[in-house]
Every structure is written in C-alpha cells, then in structure tokens.
C-alpha cells in the first residue's frame, strides 16, 4: 500500500532523509524506531505533505498514486492520517466543529454525501466513549487547555472516526503516563484491520509492548539500517541504537 524508494528529503536545505526505503503493507503494523535526529518526524511530515519538507530524490507510491503529486488535504481524503506528536491548539474552533468539518471535507472529496450535525455527533459520541473523551472536551476549542493525554486521545479519536487506509502515529507515547498509554494503545489496537496499514513511529520500545508490531524498522541517519520482527525492538532496547545500527540490515 505504501512504497517508499530511495527517499531523500531536506528541511531548510539540510538533507535529513538520505535514501530511505520502506514498504508498508495493508493489515500490518509497522514500527519505525530511531534515535533523536534520525529523521522520524521528517518522514511523517513528508508523508503528510507538510510545506517546507522538500523531497530531493526518490519516490513514494501510495495505493496506486504518486503521493508526492498530491496536496496535503488530498492525501487525507485518500486515506492518509497522521496522528501528530504535538497536536496544535486552535482557539475559536470547537473540537466538534473541527471534527465535523474534517469528516465532511473528506467525504465530499470522496464523493460521499455530507453528514448533518446530529449524525456526526452520534458517530463521535460512539467513538469517544472508549477513549474517555468527554462531551465537555468536544465542546472546548480544539486542543486548547487539553492535557498531553487528552490531546493524544483526541488524535486517536480522529483515527477511529476518519477510518484511514494508512495511519501514521508519530511519537504517540510521548508525554503519556502508563494509564494514559494503555488507553491510547487500546484505542490504536481497536483500529487494526486487514485493510489498514499502520506505521508507528517511536523512540522507545515501551509503546510496542502495548501496540505489538508485525515489522520493526530501525531508522538512523536518514535511512532504514535494520529490519526485523517484533523481537528487534527488544534487541534495540537491550543493545542500544548504536550497536544495532552497525550490524548489517
């Protein structure tokens, strides 16, 4: 579903990704692990189409499309979802209004009919309960005054609501205590499906105890330097990135 080949990407003229090659399959949970500065967030932003992240070489094919030709919002409408490490606060836009606007924009782009406010509310309520996202949170301006855990839960609520084909979770565990982590992980696991490809980006092995990956890829210096099954995550935890990165992939 996602094929990244020899990807080079630069931010402010500095090359961060240096020949990254990665394949994500439908129905599989892929984990990318890597130390700080290895290019994890750059990869997620390049996939989502953020301005300022310039692809200088390589290709990304997604579900039959040349991903790099699509605008950010077109990627979302075609089923790419990025749960962000730092979700932005937007005062003046209520969370529910945001969810409705986004959901209907995606539906419109796909040629589906828009949902009325009542239908959206029902749908959101159903999904929100499991993630302990309260009615009160939905009324508040988007992410404003939300705790770290609340922000991450709202990201996962969107994952559940938008039902993307490819979900990218960028450092979803950062800033979460163990209870919040379990709640978020349960939310993520509930969205696993044979049609959905998932890419979890994380610094620590901790998250992978709760979200068990099918494949683990090690990112260092802007490239995938090692790949393996879920046991690779444990090996990394034991040996450290420096040691594993040295061994041939």
């Amino acid at each position, binding site marked *: 579903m996602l094929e990244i080949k020899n990807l080079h990407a630069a931010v402010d003229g500095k090359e961060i990704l240096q020949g990254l090659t990665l394949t994500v399959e439908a129905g599989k949970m892929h984990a990318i692990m890597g130390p700080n500065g290895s290019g994890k967030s750059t990869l997620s932003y390049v996939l*989502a*189409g*953020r*301005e300022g992240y310039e692809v200088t070489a390589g290709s990304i094919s997604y579900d039959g499309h040349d991903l790099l030709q699509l*605008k*950010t*919002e077109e*990627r*979302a*409408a075609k089923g790419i979802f*990025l749960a*962000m490490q730092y*979700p*932005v606060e*937007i*005062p*003046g*836009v209520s969370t529910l209004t*945001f969810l409705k*606007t*986004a*959901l209907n*924009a*995606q539906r419109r*782009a796909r040629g589906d009919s828009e949902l009325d406010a009542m239908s959206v509310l029902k749908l959101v309520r159903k999904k929100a309960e499991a993630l302990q996202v309260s009615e009160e949170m939905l009324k508040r*301006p988007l992410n404003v005054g939300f705790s770290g855990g609340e922000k991450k839960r709202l990201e996962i609520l*969107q994952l559940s609501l*938008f039902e993307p084909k490819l979900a990218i979770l960028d450092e979803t565990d950062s800033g979460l205590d163990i209870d919040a982590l379990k709640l978020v992980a349960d939310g993520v696991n509930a969205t696993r499906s044979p049609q959905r490809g998932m890419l979890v980006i994380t610094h620590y092995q901790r998250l992978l105890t709760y979200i068990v990956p099918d494949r683990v890829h090690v990112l260092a210096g802007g490239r995938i330097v090692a790949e393996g099954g879920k046991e690779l995550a444990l090996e990394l935890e034991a040996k450290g990135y420096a040691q594993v990165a040295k061994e041939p992939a």
Partner: protein
Amino acid sequence: MSAVSPIEARKAEALESFRVRGMPHRRFEHWRYSDLRAVLDAGQVAAAGTAHWQIGEVPDGVEVFDLAKPAPPDWVVKNLGNIGNRPTMEEASLAFAQGGAALRVAKDRKIPQILPLTVSSTGNLRLLIVLEEGACLTLAETHAVDAGLLRNVGVEIALGRGAELTHVRIAPNAPKSFTVEHIAVGEARDARYRAHFANFGSRLSRTELHLVLREEGAEAHISGVNVLGGESHADVTTHIEHAAGKTHSTQQFKHVAGGKSRSAYQGKITVREGANGSDSRQTAKAVLTSTRAEADLKPELIIFADDVKCAHGAAVGDLDAESLFYLRSRGIPEREARRLLVRAFLEEAVAEIGNDELRAAVWRDIEAVLPRALEQAR
C-alpha cells in the same frame, strides 16, 4: 433683536474652527494612516450636503427629535455640539449638517428591543443620543452603501448615572466612498458603554471614538473587527480618558486584511491625575492574508495617576502555518482551512457582542466579505 441660540453659536464656532484647521492629513496627530486631505478638500466637505437617517419603529420610552426641525427641546440644546473634544471633521459635521437625529431615553426606562438606525445617502450628519439616569438602550447603527463621495457623521452620546448603552455599528464595504464617523461619549457615575465597530472598509474609512469616563464607576467595553479585501481601507482610532478613579475600560480589536487593503488601529488611553484605581485593558491584533495588505497597530498609554492597572498588547502576523497544516492534514481544503482560522481569530472580538441577533448579523456580514479578505493580491 433676537439672541443667537446656543446651537447656532456652536455651529458658527465649528465652521470657523474647521476653516482654520482644514482637512486632516498625515501630519495631524492621529491621522497618520488616513490622509483625508490627499483625496478630499474642504470645499467638497462643505458642499456634500446632509446625509439621511432612518429609525425603525420607535419603542415606548424613546423620544426622537429630527434635528432638521426648528425649536429643539432643551435636552438637545444642552448637548448638541457640546460633548467631546471636537476634532476637525466633527466640527465639519456640526457646521454643515442640516439635520440628523436626536434620541433620548427617559430616566430608568430600559428598552428591551433593539433600536435600528440606518444612515444613507451622501453628506454630513449629526446624531445625538442621550440616556438619562438608569436608562438602558441597544442601538444598531447600520450604513447603507451608495456611490456617494463622502459620509461624515458626528455622533454624540451622553450617558447619565448608571445608564447603559449598547452600540453596535456595522459599516459595510463601500468601495467608492470616503466614510468618516466621530463618536464622542461622556459617561457619568456607574454608566456603561458597550460598543462594537464592524468595519468592512471603504476608499477611506475612519471611525474615531473619544470617550470620557467622567465619574467613578463608569465603564466602557469596546470591541471591533476590520475585515478587508480588495483595495479597502479602514482606520479605527480610539481615545479613552479615565478622568475619575475606579473607572474601567476594555478594548478588543481584531483585524483581517487581504488583497491590497490597509487596516489601522490607534488606541490611546489617558489616565488623568487622581484617577486612582482605574483599570484599562487594550488588545489589538491583525492578520495579514496577503503579502500586499498592510496593518498598522498603535497603542498609546498616557498615565498621570498612581495605583492604576493598564494592560495592552498589539500583534500583526500571518495565519499560523502549523494550524493550517494540521487542518489540511485532516482533509480540510486550504481555502476552507484559512476561512476557519480567520473566523477563529475574529471570534474573540465578535463574542464581545452580547446580543445574539446583532452578533449573528455581524457574522453574516463577515462571511460575505471573507472570500475577498482571504484573497492574495498579485
């Protein structure tokens, strides 16, 4: 020999003063961002005639006097041309307007319905609003758009003890006209003036407020939005004087400028000697949605008293790139995302309008102008 009436005397004085001072221009204090002299001469102001006004159904408890008629009642004689500091364009409206409206709400009368007042046509005009002690009124001032060259309105507002006026002024986009309005407000003890100025721009649009909190406990809460596109201009200039202690003022202005528009806010707060325990807050923010648009924000504080609270802030910026990316990454097209963010930016100021009907009216006008205010000029 018949004596000259006080109003006639004030008009003659105003005429003389306007002749001497002439048209305001960039080197006038507080006319930096609106060079009226460059586009209009004093003769055109004098020859502009008198604009029209119209008031909907007059509710019980409100008295209306047509200033074009002879024999004004005492409350008009006492107040007309007698409130505020009479800057030059206000002198012009006093000198040249052959009519206008005077409204009075009697002591302790609280008018539940909105009083709509519409200004139309071209020329000078005077409005006088007197709220007696304990009176309460919501005034919706709207302006009809036409191709007239100049509309120069002088508004005077006298609020008695404990009186409360809510004044929502909506100035639609009038691309062919020069529109000037000066609002002078005097407040007695515990009076409250709540105003919202929604400006959608004209060839040159100037809204100037001079408000004096004369006695303890008086309050003023001013908010407003400028939403501009094309080559529109809108300048909001306020001067709030805390002349007595324990007075309170807040200001909340949000400006959006797209296309090649120009938006300006100048807010001066003076805290007079002895006005201890007064509290003033002022925020002005502008978002530029086009590289060719311009916004100028100029706060000014002059404080002669001790023991006062003054807070102010001003910021001009672009729409937040991170927020824009976040919304687009959720499938919201760029245009819609920008619209959503601009609405969100304006929300704080529009929310200051307590009346649901008037707040909805301002939002409707904002929505109508937004597509142009979001246009990037080449």
